[in-house]
């Protein structure tokens, strides 16, 4: 599996996802600068977290107008797998590959903490290896992760199995107490219509190393590997 990580001015989790792909999963990993159009034939594109362009204008807005993202859009439209994490999710919403928007957290604060995620659909390229009933413990670190979309889109996301992850309580229940940012229906991540594009606010790359305490995030990467192999 060939992985491409796109770097923008102000990305700060680029290093973390490169390590995720290259060191933890030993995948050939290319790094593409935002001005480049050639994605170098990836099987998976990773859009890292961070503060591209300092979140100026709106988070992800400026990154979504770069040559690299134009190529990512073409790649996704032809069925290629794209995973945007945190700022990467914001960029995917801004460039139109995913519907809706990520508003300021309801608390108006940046929030960093570990949370529990429940997969909404196990039959996707990004979730197929998650065992039934398994909750993933993964940290969030964002100021704008409050997912919002219009009613029609919300209905489509639910009925088409496109809610990839929700924030849940340790018992697996949707619970406002465990929704960190006011996100609609506790949404932590969503999929495109063809389910080949995933945007999620939590950081699975930060929960994939035993030395740091938790490896639940590995399941997402392992799902992609298994999807491409099958």
């Amino acid at each position, binding site marked *: 599996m060939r992985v491409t990580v796109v770097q923008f001015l102000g990305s700060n989790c680029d290093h973390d996802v490169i*390590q*995720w792909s290259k060191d933890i999963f030993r995948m050939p990993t290319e790094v593409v600068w935002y001005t480049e159009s050639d994605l170098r034939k990836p099987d998976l594109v990773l859009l890292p977290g*961070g*503060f591209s*362009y300092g979140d100026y204008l709106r988070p992800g807005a400026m990154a979504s107008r770069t040559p690299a993202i134009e190529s990512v859009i073409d790649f996704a439209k032809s069925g290629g797998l794209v995973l945007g994490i945190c700022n990467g999710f914001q960029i995917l919403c801004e460039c139109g590959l995913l519907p809706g928007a990520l508003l300021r957290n309801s608390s108006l*604060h*940046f929030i960093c903490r570990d949370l529990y995620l429940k997969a909404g659909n196990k039959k996707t390229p990004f979730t197929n290896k998650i065992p039934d009933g398994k909750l993933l413990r993964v*940290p969030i670190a964002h100021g704008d992760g409050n997912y919002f979309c219009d009613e029609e889109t919300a209905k489509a996301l639910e009925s088409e199995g496109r809610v990839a992850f929700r924030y849940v309580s340790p018992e697996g229940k949707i619970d406002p107490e465990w929704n960190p940012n006011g996100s609609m229906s506790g949404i932590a991540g969503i999929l495109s219509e063809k389910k080949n594009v995933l945007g999620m606010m939590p950081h699975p790359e930060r929960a994939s190393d035993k*030395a*740091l305490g938790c490896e639940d995030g590995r399941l997402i990467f392992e799902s992609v590997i298994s999807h491409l192999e099958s």
Partner: protein
Amino acid sequence: MAEMEVTFELAKENGITPEEWEKIHKILGRKPTYPELGIFQAMWSEHCSYKSSKIHLKTLPTEAPWVLQGPGENAGIIDIGDGWAVAFKMESHNHPSFIEPYQGAATGVGGILRDVFTMGARPLANLNGLFFGAPDHPKTPFLMRGVVAGVGDYGNCIGVPMLGGQVTFHPCFNGNNLVNAFTLGVLRGDRIFRGKAEGVGNPVWYVGSKTGRDGIHGATMASAEFSEETEEKKPTVQVGDPFTEKLLLEACLEIMADDFVLGIQDMGAAGLTSSSLEMAERAGSGIRIDLSKIPLREKDLNPYEILLSESQERMLFVAKKGYEKEILSVFRKWNLDAVQIGEVTDTSRAEFWFGGKKVADIPIAGIGDEAPLYDRPSAEPEELSEMRKLDLSKIEDLKDPGKEFLHFIGSPHLCSRKWVFTQYDQSVRTNTVQGPYHEAGLIRLKGTTKGIAMSLDVNPRLCKLDPRLGAASAVAESALNVACAGAKPLGVTDCLNFGNPEKPGVMWEFKEAMAGMREACLKLETPVVSGNVSFYNETEGVGIYPTPSIGMVGLAEDISKTATCFFKKDGAKVLLLGKRKGTLGGSLYLSAVKGLDKGNPPELDLDYHKSLINLMISLIGDGLVESAHDVSEGGLLPALAECCLSPLSDDLGASIDLKPGQRLDELFFGESISRVVVTADPESAGEVMKSAAAAGIDAGEIGLTGGKDFSVSIEGKRIFSLKISEIRTVWENGIDKILA
């Protein structure tokens, strides 16, 4: 703008004394120009010159075989083996954070990050010491919201995790809150960059943000007391742009990967003036700069303003000739200005030109060698002898211990710092082994088994009552924190926050604190490698308690052999290692609950403390203990309860049984500097006791982990029992009391 007429009156307004005015004439052999006056005034400000502290700072130990860079550079560096090194420093941003908390705190983080990456290190961890006024002071919520958001937003945007620190409330900070920012970075020991302007004819480069009018006189502002007119000083506070800093960080590390950068320094306090002068001074060279070439944010800045602007996110570096193309291509990639503004000379003078005219010409040695140095008079403050008196018979002992315990642990002084810490990214860069809820921050060093532990500590109350002991105990506590994570303490950075040094009482506190730090650093073999001094933390004549913050850095050779403070499982034995008895003198309990900052603080036996530190490192390294928690402010019971309150796992209780012989308040909340609570498997507990005995450290069994309650007895007689969930609710919501 017409050239300002330079008179003594004008100089005096800017903090120059008659003696200093004389010296300036002697150095120049003439009257200074207006820009020259600005240069002297900034360079000789307390903030830049350390004129009141220097002779005392020289007494601190700064050397050890593992010290690669001691004080005098942008950050200190220690060797951690296998070719790796860590650069670290702490710096205050107190005055700006009181005037404008968000930007003041944010630019404090920005400045310390630059100090570390200037050395060629990749910043990997931040700590923060935040000191606010009384929880119920009307300004506290405003300052706290602003400071925490400012610290968070800057570090989060750059992508450097915040691993903890300290949040303290005390009325002595009502008029002067403190923001002490610490950054640690990692580099190869043979790739250290220093702030030197070397090689005659080599170009001097300016990179980063454009220069604006913000922060002019920042260094001077930070060298004076506050009064009612402090609000007017808002324009002296700089405005931060973490996005630009992130680009600057990446661009600088990219050019430093090559061999053509000879010296580099950030433009911090006193901006271009101090960076250019210091770089030339360190290299013994001269420097010529054309101020007309500086990229400007707004039109018509005059030479004085350009020299003294403290606009953020700017660096100065000297490179070998002939690498212009390479340098420009890197900075163009990162969308940053990079301009050649001058060159290194052999004149030993700093020359600044503007529009083809020389506007300043100063012998560099004059600024440094002739800088005023004061051995200011000192005398023990009169109030101290009264403060040290404590008559416990006049203080009522606990009546309803369970309720009083709950109230105490839920107070802003002891409660969870979750509200603060969740606003900081703790895990970016995927190195965080222990984040801010732990005893010490601990990151792994990728590609090795090593872990780097760090802790920030000071107890201003102890420092007030006995500055010598207080400063020594800050070193001792921070070293013990690092040891409780399983790491060996190796070096110190400090941030010395004091009142007005022109007052003999404050100077006495400072001198005593230096003596205490010296004793402790020598004994614990933790040299001071970097730091800063912040005087004039006074408003309307009222000063803060002496607050020498200590940042301690230690090394764990194997991160798989480290410990955290949280109880791990049912049925473990709870052991108390170290001094058995605490004292109420100078305790948080007396201060927070009884409103008394009184009494003699606990004693500190540095030899004993060192044995305890070594014992902890070996117990953790041998895997004999499951958890380790230093018992500090608040005393024994709050420390034990904290071990039950892991943010990541379920409630795990404990039954504690203590020996009688003390008042309840003293037994539960008395403080001692050398105490640690550990848990051990019943099979290992005997081994732990034996090791402690061999090390000469007192040890005793005080309870068992298990259940969902926190129960406390004395000789088997139950005093109180509370559900962990109840303690957690009170403890986690304590900060809300301030913000509501």
